[in-house]
């Protein structure tokens, strides 16, 4: 221990990795102490904006392929906890902070329709804790710290989903299901960490990676890897483990659905990516076979089956939830191709799908402010009475399908390229087929919106509600035209992860 230190030497800039995580964590208890509805919203929004600013600064700092390291408490790893920011997690930090800021604008006008006013303070506190957890999972380079933050985000997520019970009591059972499944997932994950610790005696990702490569073929590590894949599979809703997702997304308040759909599953997928590339050896035959024989078929089943199920859903939130499962399939497929291009497409799709799905769920939320329910028949003719919301929904839908000029096109194109490059022609065809299913279920909604008789007289929602929806819709177009933010950073990230 250096006893010579008389004064701290770190500037504000050095602290960015930790400030990213503790900003929302500091605000959450303040909200509970103050217990004021309007102030809660304001402080949460300011906190989310601060997070956004920090994540942009971080993204700039690492976009040249460099890595920022931060030692908590001044303890040097592998003893202490380390936060390590590179292009891959900076991109995710940006996505999470951006979505949380936009979603909070939306909650200002929509939350009172879904949750009684005396619960708003605690709702925002929970939201910020969830944000803390997600940011922490992404920022940290210590595998046990990943587990802790994962639980912070999951526990607050269960509470947030249950808040939908003021509109529909089924939110409670959905939340309980999610709680059971999520906890099983977390248990598997922590068992996997236990195996890794048993075999290597370390919790720092970089340190473990070094020791794993020295150990060679090792049963303990393989078992640990299998546990971690299953645990994360539950959290990211990989297809046979997805049962919690549709109901949780359907019955949660719109604000929560937007936030979760855009971030939570992506963070779990990021953890999987991080473990494959930064902890385990991705060239290892066990890892490769697991991805080729298990995850790739599951991803393809998700792409096709979930899309088909989505076509037949009458509840639109559930429809989009199933479509989310299919989109998770694309991301998993990109990862399981085990190539630099595939990984980059997976990362790009995380961001693009995040914005797309948030735009779709948010415009559904705006419809719901008027119609009070979200069945397809209640949207009849809303294209005329709510033109701006409907237009935003159409843009989001086009991006979900992958029409050129939208964000979805970029990532699907990259995925197709990666699949063809790897020689999987059949998979490339299946990607296109799955997109055609997306055309069917999006068209089904557009038809009802624009080509049906008006069911009731509704007015367009207020401008405050339209602003966040249109920010997201414009992002869907912007990311489809300007790819420097997503594709370039994702390529650098894939490069960093592979080397």
């Amino acid at each position, binding site marked *: *221990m250096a006893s010579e230190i008389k004064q*701290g030497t770190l500037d504000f800039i050095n602290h960015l990795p930790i400030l990213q995580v503790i900003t929302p964590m500091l605000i959450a208890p303040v909200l509970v102490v103050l217990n004021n509805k309007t102030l809660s919203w304001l402080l949460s929004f300011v906190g989310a904006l601060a997070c956004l600013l920090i994540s942009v600064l971080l993204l700039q700092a690492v976009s040249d392929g460099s890595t920022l390291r931060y030692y908590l408490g*001044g303890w040097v790893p592998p003893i202490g906890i380390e936060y390590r920011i590179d292009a891959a997690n900076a991109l995710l930090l940006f996505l999470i902070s951006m979505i949380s800021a936009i979603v909070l604008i939306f909650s200002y006008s929509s939350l009172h329709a879904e949750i009684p006013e005396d619960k708003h303070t605690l709702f925002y506190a929970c939201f910020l804790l969830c944000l803390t957890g997600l940011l922490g999972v992404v920022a940290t380079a210590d595998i046990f710290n990943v587990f802790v933050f994962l639980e912070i985000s999951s526990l607050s997520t269960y509470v947030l989903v249950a808040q939908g019970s003021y509109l529909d009591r089924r939110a409670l059972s959905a939340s309980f299901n999610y709680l059971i499944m999520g906890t099983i997932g977390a248990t598997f994950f922590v068992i996997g960490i236990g195996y890794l610790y048993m075999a290597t005696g370390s919790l720092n990702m970089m340190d473990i990676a070094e020791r794993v490569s020295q150990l060679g073929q090792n049963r303990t590590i393989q078992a640990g890897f299998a546990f971690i894949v299953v645990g994360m599979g539950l959290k990211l809703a990989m297809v046979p483990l997805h049962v919690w997702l549709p109901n949780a997304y359907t019955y949660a308040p719109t604000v929560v659905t937007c936030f979760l759909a855009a971030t939570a599953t992506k963070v779990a997928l990021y953890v999987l990516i991080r473990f494959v590339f930064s902890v385990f050896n991705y060239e290892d035959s066990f890892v490769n076979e697991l991805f080729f024989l298990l995850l790739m078929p599951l991803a393809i089943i998700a792409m096709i089956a979930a899309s088909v199920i989505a076509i037949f859903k009458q509840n639109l939130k559930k429809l989009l939830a199933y479509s989310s499962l299919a989109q998770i399939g694309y991301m998993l497929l990109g990862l399981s191709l085990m190539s630099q291009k595939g990984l980059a497409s997976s990362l790009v799709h995380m961001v693009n799908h995040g914005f797309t799905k948030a735009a779709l769920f948010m415009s559904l939320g705006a419809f719901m402010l008027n119609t009070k329910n979200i069945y397809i028949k209640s949207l009849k003719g809303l294209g005329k009475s709510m033109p701006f919301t409907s237009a935003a929904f159409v843009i989001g839908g086009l991006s979900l399908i992958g029409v050129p000029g939208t964000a979805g096109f970029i990532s699907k194109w990259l995925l197709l390229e990666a699949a063809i490059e790897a020689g999987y022609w059949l998979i490339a065809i299946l990607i296109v087929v799955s997109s055609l299913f997306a055309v069917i279920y999006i068209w089904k909604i557009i038809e009802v919106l624009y080509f049906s008789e008006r069911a009731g007289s509704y007015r367009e929602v207020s401008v405050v509600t339209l602003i966040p929806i249109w920010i997201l819709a414009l992002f869907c177009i912007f990311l489809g035209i300007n790819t420097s933010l997503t594709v370039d950073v994702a390529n650098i990230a894939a490069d960093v992860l592979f080397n």
Partner: protein
Amino acid sequence: MKHHLILKVITKFMVGVIVLFGLYVQFHGDYSPGGGFQAGVIIAAAFILYGIVMGLENVQKVMPIWFAQKAAAIGVLVYALTGVFSIVFGFEFLNYHAISPEHPKHGQHYGIILVELGVGITVTFVMIAIYYSFAGRTPRLDDKEW
């Protein structure tokens, strides 16, 4: 005072002892087994015991729900602000050297006490809040129905 007289008398006596022992575990956490988490649970156990024996209304006169909620949040703040203190003085988050740069050992000592205090406060009041939310759900038993 007719029913469970012995329980009630013993409880009144024990509550003080339990809290005292909790505080001992809290502040000796850096020398001996213990610390904020264990101390928090012990102190909360005193309140929960009082609530079980004397009834929920009586314990909530001493410890209202709103107070438990806010105090739990304040505990988190104590912990987090200890970390922020280090950042303000140019050290890493939760680097206790910042508290006493001339004597790093003292700094470490004070730092861990502060952090454990935050943990202790939060655990105490979260435990109490959990007890309240479960106990508040069941219909209250009348004294004669025992």
